[in-house]
């Protein structure tokens, strides 16, 4: 349903019209790459970018990360061609910019269903990550977060948001605590992941690190990135603490133990272990593995055998 066990700490935007960047996607160590057909591509090159991205994705068969494509907004004349060209290449999903209302999301959901039928794919195969970029969108965020089963995460995009609010974009972030928390609460309530905005000043790595620490405190699952140099710092800051890793290992043990005993209910320390706890434990262990903190491979089929949700 929500794929909440997938690690989506780092979502790197890659311009859709640049072969030199696209072909390095397999090399980048981020969790997700978002191929951008929107802001990174001028109008006159939208057709070129679609085809280039499509051919690249088609050739990228041994995937080591998720691939999303940021289509143009539903208020532009481009999004339909974006979907028609890109979806046959079978990316993991679509990143929707400027999602204002839940009906935007439902509209995209319906379109994706049409394409899945046309392509003969499993319905629900294409996922959505939507970006919330305006004051109104933040106020609608609770409904947006529940508007589609394809939605795996909501992203917060600050550039347009601060323009919308008619404020400066502060590097310290205190003006943005409320919208960030609203987004986060909506995501948690809906059981999806919360992704923070890009940090645009690639030369200010100190300020970037501070923002990563800030959003970790707030509880964000990941962050959108515009430069591969930003990946390592983010992963380091979001690294699970040793206590979290230990707990996650205990959760996995508890599940294995319950399976061996044939019981459907898993408990740990007197508390029931439910799906969100499992999802979190999986993410913690994936993150720990990626940072070399644990050796164990996470056998998802063992974990999800009876707990599919």
């Amino acid at each position, binding site marked *: 349903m929500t794929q909440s066990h997938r690690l989506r700490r780092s979502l790197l935007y890659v311009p859709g019209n*640049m*072969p030199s960047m696209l072909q390095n996607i397999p090399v980048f160590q981020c969790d997700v790459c978002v191929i951008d057909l929107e802001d990174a591509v001028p109008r006159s090159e939208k*057709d*070129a970018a679609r085809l*280039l991205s*499509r*051919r690249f994705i088609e050739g990228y068969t041994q995937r080591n990360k998720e691939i999303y494509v940021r289509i143009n907004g539903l208020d532009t004349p481009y999004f339909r061609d974006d979907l028609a060209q890109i979806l046959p290449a079978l990316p993991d999903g679509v990143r929707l910019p400027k999602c204002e209302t839940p009906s935007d999301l439902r509209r995209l959901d319906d379109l994706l269903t049409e394409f899945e039928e046309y392509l003969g794919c499993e319905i629900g195969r294409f996922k959505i990550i939507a970006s919330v970029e305006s004051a109104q969108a933040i106020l609608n965020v609770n409904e947006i977060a529940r508007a589609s089963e394809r939605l795996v995460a909501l992203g917060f995009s600050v550039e347009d948001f601060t323009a919308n609010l008619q404020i400066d974009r502060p590097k310290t972030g205190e003006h943005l605590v409320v919208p960030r928390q609203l987004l986060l609460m909506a995501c948690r309530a809906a059981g999806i992941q919360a992704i923070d905005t890009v940090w645009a000043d690639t030369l200010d790595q100190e300020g970037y690190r501070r923002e990563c620490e800030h959003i970790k405190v707030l509880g964000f699952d990941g962050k959108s990135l515009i430069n591969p140099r930003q990946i390592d710092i983010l992963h380091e800051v979001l690294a699970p603490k040793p206590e979290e890793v230990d707990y996650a290992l205990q959760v996995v043990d508890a599940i294995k133990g319950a399976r061996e005993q044939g019981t459907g209910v898993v408990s740990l320390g007197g508390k029931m272990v439910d799906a969100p706890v499992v999802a979190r434990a999986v993410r913690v262990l994936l993150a720990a593995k990626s940072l070399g903190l644990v050796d164990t491979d996470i056998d998802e089929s063992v974990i999800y055998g009876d707990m599919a949700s």
Partner: protein
Amino acid sequence: MRINKKAQAGTMQSSDLMVFIEPADDLVIEVESTVQKQFGHLIEARIKQVLKRLAVERCRIAVSDRGALDYAIDARVETALRRAS
């Protein structure tokens, strides 16, 4: 596909190629590449593949290549042909 007008696609950046299409009475393919000696044969083969797939039998196509991989050659040639049709 019929080629009706001039068109181009791509950029001069490293790992990319520029494709120039013109209407013509027959099929003329010109390739200039930074890796001509090592990959000229593969580049030309790829271009011909795209022309065949799109059923283009007559045009003048000039390619200026900066070490693009096959998927990019594919995409840029097709984009240029579509823009020219």
